């Protein structure tokens, strides 16, 4: 076994990032993400990386993208209001296929809300940037161990698919403290770089299920990035008529994710095979759900537990397979109903019912009561 530590989710996130090779952090103070920014301000210097506190969250995401172009694994961390400000930058990272990681330690909204925990940004994480013709990756950690391991996974997926990955945490997880085991061996994915001659390099040319290799600024490839609709060479499409392949890159930025959904999907399914009632949940809600399902099983109720670790891309097919035997599916989440509707889309002929709460986290008793109600 590796080193055993005791720390908060936000601290574990920083250690995961460093283990993944993150060497650039830009951020702006906001509760409940401050511990990430503060720990980074110390730790980045210790690992010869860069920390900078920018003038706002817009500047933070932009600096992160710039650092990624220059060759560093880069990330930022924020919460609700800051996440809203970052949306234009996140869309730009998607369009320019710039790897980076955005940690959103969710707090209650709308607006300033407060610093209580909530899971309200699930849809914003998916659709927050304008012009929705894109796919991205959003992961939801439910423990301190996962604040560590999913931060690493976020970097790995981000580097492999050249896409911003959002680690969608919550105040309840960021501020939770529990055991963290640092594994002895950690799998790290590094960016693929071009091997062809400078003359032959087309920066945005790749198969439909992959991201192209990426040259760093200063490598001599003289790459040009733009948020404009661009050709495989990277230059703006000035007329749709003149470029028959105008949509090639636009299509690929979605297909590279969609065609790899089986590899990106992470789920935690327990007691599923004979379950008549399945609780679908994620993040902090899943902690209550697991406890409730265990209790229900002790009482002879055939309850199952399905935790979504990858929220986006949403794997409808897999959910359908796993829930095929169930009569009732309960979706527990801390918002007005977001993943609920995705599960209903995945299971159109099943009874999918909500267990919603607007603030804080579910308790095991609340979940158990709901299970009892539908038995």
């Amino acid at each position, binding site marked *: 076994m590796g080193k055993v530590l005791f720390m908060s989710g936000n601290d574990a996130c920083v250690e995961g990032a460093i283990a993944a090779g993150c060497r*650039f952090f*830009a951020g702006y103070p906001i509760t409940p993400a401050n511990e990430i920014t503060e720990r980074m301000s110390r730790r980045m*210097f*210790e690992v*010869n990386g*860069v920390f*900078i506190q*920018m*003038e*706002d969250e*817009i*500047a*933070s995401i*932009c*600096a*992160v*993208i*710039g*650092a*990624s*172009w*220059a*060759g*560093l694994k*880069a990330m930022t961390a924020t919460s609700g209001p800051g996440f809203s400000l970052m949306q*234009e*930058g996140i869309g*730009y990272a998607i369009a*320019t296929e710039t790897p980076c990681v955005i940690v959103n330690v969710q707090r209650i909204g709308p607006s300033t809300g407060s610093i209580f925990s909530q899971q309200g940004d699930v849809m914003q994480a998916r659709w927050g940037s304008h012009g929705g013709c894109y796919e991205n990756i959003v992961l939801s950690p439910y423990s301190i161990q996962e604040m560590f391991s999913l931060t690493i996974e976020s970097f790995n997926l981000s580097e492999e698919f050249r896409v911003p990955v959002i680690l969608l945490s919550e105040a309840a997880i960021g501020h939770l403290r529990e055991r963290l085991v640092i594994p002895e061996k950690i799998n790290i994915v590094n960016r693929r770089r071009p091997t062809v001659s400078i003359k032959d390099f087309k920066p945005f040319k790749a198969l439909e299920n992959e991201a192209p290799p990426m040259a*760093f*600024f*200063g*490598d*001599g*490839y*003289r*790459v*040009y*990035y*733009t*948020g*404009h609709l661009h050709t495989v060479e990277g*230059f*703006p499409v*000035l007329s749709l008529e003149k470029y028959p392949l105008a949509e090639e890159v636009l299509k690929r930025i979605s297909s590279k994710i969609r065609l790899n959904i089986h590899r990106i999907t992470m789920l935690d399914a327990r007691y599923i095979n004979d379950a008549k009632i399945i609780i679908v949940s994620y993040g902090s809600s899943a902690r209550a759900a697991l406890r409730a399902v265990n209790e229900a099983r002790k009482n002879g109720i055939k309850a199952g537990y399905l935790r979504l670790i990858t929220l986006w891309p949403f794997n409808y097919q897999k959910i359908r397979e796993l829930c095929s035997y169930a009569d009732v599916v309960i979706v527990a989440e801390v918002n007005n109903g977001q993943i609920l509707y995705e599960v209903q889309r995945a299971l159109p002929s099943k009874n999918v019912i909500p267990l919603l709460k607007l603030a804080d986290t579910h308790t095991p008793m609340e979940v158990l009561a709901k299970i009892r109600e539908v038995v």
Partner: protein
Amino acid sequence: MHLLSNIIRTERLPHEFCPGCAIGQVYHYAAKAVEELGINMDKVVFLSGIGCNSRGVGYVRFDSATTLHGRAIAFATGVKLANPNLTVIVVTGDGDGAGIGGNHLIHAARRNIDLTVILYNNRVYASTGGQLAPTTPYGMYTSTTPYGSLEEPFDLCSLVAAAGAVYVARWTTAHPYKAINSIKKGVLKKGFSFIEIIGQCPTYFGRYILKTTDPVKCLKWLIENSIMKESTSKIPAEELSNKIVVGEFVDKDRPELTEQYRILREKLKLQLV
């Protein structure tokens, strides 16, 4: 082969700018400055935001990006901190750099990070159709000030100087050699340099304000209406307020940000051993 094909992406020509636009000149000055300084062009990065001004980066043969409206300096901060060996040049506009992006401009100057910012000022929002900019002269008619502007414009050089830039100069496209020279100084300067270039926009500033779309007339107007900083005391104050004061405003030294990072890292390394 095109004479400038080492610095211009000639395969992308013809360009998309209006006839007589100043943007070609501004990028020419910047690329020329880099070429004359003899810096390894593989290590030069050009970044821009959004606007007519920003489209130019797609035509220069460097590592480059057209970023988001107003945000080029924030991207540049990331690039420079991540790899301080790169020479990072930002080309921005008055709306881009001083309107939506004004906050990044003053903070980068305050931090004194080694960037060279060239702000092409046409005193309107050109690419969106000639609307009011934070640099439009008082009383002027634009697409969004049909009764004349009620706002005073920014003096950008004073603003950036007050924020802490170590090199600040203003020229017009009627002062090409002075502009190139200032860009060279800015690139060589360790710290935040700011070069404002007032340029003609025959399509909007020309048509709306000077009542001409003739680029030569627009350029003549720039010459006639600019005055060297050193001569400002010779004319009355009220006359001066209508003039474009050109020259070098700041040329000083103070600790640069990436250099301070380097020093701090060295210090910490000794402590950590």
